[in-house]
């Protein structure tokens, strides 16, 4: 834990990324607002801004939800994946402004407190066409707030990754609530039917991407039935099936391991990066160190330990190379335990 919270913070690529994000958001808002004023000169400006902010947040949420499966299907999306948190915070900010403006416009002028009025001004909870869609947006906003507020690494460490991840799975609940918020909202405002089509298209695209990515994951996690020798070693693959300075992932010992070939040697370590469980098997060996594809934490493949002064460690696995095949023992060694790398035999001599 000594990389420091600043480590993952700022570099040139990230600044460029944040500027692009900001530029895209501002262009969208500007286009939406100017376009609406031109097309509907008599529309109220509050309403236009309110809609611009709401739709921008909702579109951004689609992008955020699409990145995860896209990165699993094609590694070229990875840079977007690990910069996703700034996108999430931006999306929350837009949604918050939309929510505040709505509260002010629709509930800010009565005797009841705006938040109470949000829940009580329309109580047709038994109606489909008049369903109170605004509370759905409110609950989604609460979830988005919890995720944005805990997006800092401090919270990942403090809440622990399993709880943090469960909390951040709430994004799917928020998305469901927002489908209701937007869908029921469309029913109650004069809306072009094409917008329902757009809503459905967005939802179906996300569903298809997630199903496709899930199909790929299950294939990896059910890789069972490896050949086993007398000492319990499992035959995973041929050495030459692992690209040089790269890894391959297998499901061994109840979780994924990553097997690397580098410098004529082969080593196996647990696949989950200690930072945020990034997939080490998708990383590269750079200067003899396994480098996590997400934020670049590094590990010595033979020991599973980060080079000093860093203190991160992952479990290692005993391994041998026989006749060009990689055999790995499924019992993990304590994190940071040195294991003799297997030696890659030159093709041709047995």
């Amino acid at each position: 834990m000594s990389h420091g919270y600043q480590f993952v913070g700022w570099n040139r690529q990230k600044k460029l990324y944040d500027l692009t994000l900001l530029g895209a958001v501002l262009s969208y808002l500007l286009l939406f607002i100017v376009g609406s004023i031109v097309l509907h000169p008599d529309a109220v400006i509050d309403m236009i801004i309110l809609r611009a902010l709401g739709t921008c947040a909702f579109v951004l949420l689609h992008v955020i939800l699409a990145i995860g499966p896209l990165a699993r299907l094609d590694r070229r999306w990875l840079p977007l994946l690990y910069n996703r948190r700034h996108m999430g915070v931006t999306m929350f900010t837009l949604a918050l402004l939309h929510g505040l403006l709505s509260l002010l416009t629709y509930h800010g002028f009565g005797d009841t407190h705006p938040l109470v009025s949000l829940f009580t001004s329309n109580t047709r909870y038994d109606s489909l066409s008049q369903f109170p869609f605004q509370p759905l947006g409110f609950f989604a906003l609460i979830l988005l707030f919890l995720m944005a507020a805990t997006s800092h690494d401090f919270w990942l460490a403090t809440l622990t990754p399993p709880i943090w991840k469960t909390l951040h799975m709430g994004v799917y609940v928020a998305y469901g609530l927002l489908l209701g918020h937007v869908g029921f909202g469309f029913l109650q405002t004069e809306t072009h039917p094409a917008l329902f089509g757009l809503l459905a298209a967005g939802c179906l695209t996300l569903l298809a991407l997630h199903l496709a990515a899930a199909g790929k994951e299950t294939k990896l996690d059910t890789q069972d039935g490896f050949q086993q020798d007398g000492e319990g070693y499992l035959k995973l693959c041929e050495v030459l099936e692992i690209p040089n300075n790269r890894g391959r992932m297998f499901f061994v010992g109840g979780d994924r391991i990553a097997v690397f070939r580098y410098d004529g040697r082969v080593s196996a370590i647990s696949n989950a990066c200690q930072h945020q469980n990034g997939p080490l098997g998708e990383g590269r060996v750079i200067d003899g160190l396994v480098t996590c594809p997400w934020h670049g934490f590094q590990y010595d493949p033979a020991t599973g330990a980060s080079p000093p002064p860093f203190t991160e460690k992952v479990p290692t696995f005993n391994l041998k190379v026989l006749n060009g095949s990689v055999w790995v023992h499924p019992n993990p060694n304590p994190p940071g335990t040195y294991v003799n790398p297997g030696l890659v035999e030159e093709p041709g001599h047995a």
Partner: protein
Amino acid sequence: MFEQLVNWIFVAVGGYLALGLGFAVVFVLRGVRELDPTARERASVGFRLAILPASTVFWPLLLRRWLSGQHEPPEECSPHRCAACSASCEQKDVV
């Protein structure tokens, strides 16, 4: 009736968050350095502000840890980590 219920819920949540904000201010100024090794090394103003909102929400958790005198966040246990160190894992506060 319904309106009163909604009103009470907001009063209760508001009270919880008001207490939380009071705690959070003290926590980001003092407590965070005791609880978290990385923050001990370096805690910028930006960092303190960034963790303030969620400290307002999760204050009972932070308060409990602060009072218990823990100086590290609990360690995560993946299947591999647990299998490798099941003995030492049981002694630590592991999730």
